[in-house]
């Protein structure tokens, strides 16, 4: 391949939209509307992505090599020929993992600070 693999750090921090899409594709490939539903379920209904936001992000993520279109159809029974399915690339999976670690670290810092402030107040 002509293009060198971009550094994972160059993608971080991810925008919430990109993070949600990567996360929704972490366990299986999905089509656009299934991604929207999964994002809504993951965020307990707090985030409802519109078609414009979704496909704008998908376009950028395809160009960046984070996801690819998949030829396989996981649900042949309910499959619609016109739907396009997307799945994570190795790069996408690494970026998702790095962002998850970054967020976990921040959550840990927040917990520690809360513990410290609780002790100080107590």
């Amino acid at each position, binding site marked *: 391949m002509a293009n060198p693999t971009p550094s994972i750090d160059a993608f971080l921090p991810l925008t919430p939209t990109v993070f949600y899409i990567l996360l929704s594709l972490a366990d299986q490939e999905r089509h*656009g*509307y299934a991604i*929207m*539903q999964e994002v809504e379920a993951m965020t307990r209904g707090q985030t*409802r*992505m*519109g*078609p*414009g*936001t*979704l*496909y*704008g992000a*998908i*376009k*950028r993520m395809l160009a960046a090599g984070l996801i690819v279109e998949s030829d396989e159809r996981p649900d042949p029974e309910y499959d*619609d020929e*016109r*739907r*396009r399915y997307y799945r994570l690339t190795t790069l996408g999976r690494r970026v998702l993992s790095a962002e998850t670690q970054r967020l976990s670290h921040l959550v840990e810092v927040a917990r520690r600070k809360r513990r410290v402030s609780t002790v100080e107040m107590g």
Partner: protein
Amino acid sequence: MSHAPRSWVLAASERTYRLLLFAYPPAYRGEYGQLMVQAYRDLYRDTVRRKGMAGLAALWFCILGDLATSAIAQHLEALRERAPTMTKKEHVLAIIAAVLPLALWAALGLINPRFVRHMFVRSPAQPWGWIMVAGVFLLVGLAYFSQRKAFELTSQSGSSDQAPSRRILRGTLRAISVALFILPAILLVLFGPAAIMVLNME
């Protein structure tokens, strides 16, 4: 109350959504338009199933917000993508068109120094010369920017730039740019010094 999707409402709202997709750049619409309509159809059915027809107002509120922000983002992205397609010749033409008023100013200044002298009166009470200089440079900047945008908006990678409709559109945009920025800049260069002389004497 029945929550069954009413097909005529779906058909009408889908047609409206299809029309609204014209807010996106043509290339993006060609690639993702059909998929977005399909996603809208799914959203519609899901909303009606879960919340009934009353949920459609909230759905459209979200859809319009989503459309406005993502269409602007796609246009900006399309402009960024098209920028490198502007050739050197097109750049030179845009620069020449924009700096025409400055060239005229320099030429007039050489013929008659009065055209320039009144611009640079160093007095806070007589700021008109400086305002005019700033105005000319602002118009020149806007002229270059609009000429460039005229090329970019009518360029499409992978398609012929010589298509008659594209040339007509480009010509119209450039004419608008000339009328809005270059012409006023030329008029300012020609008649500004006389006006400033009068203003400074008051």
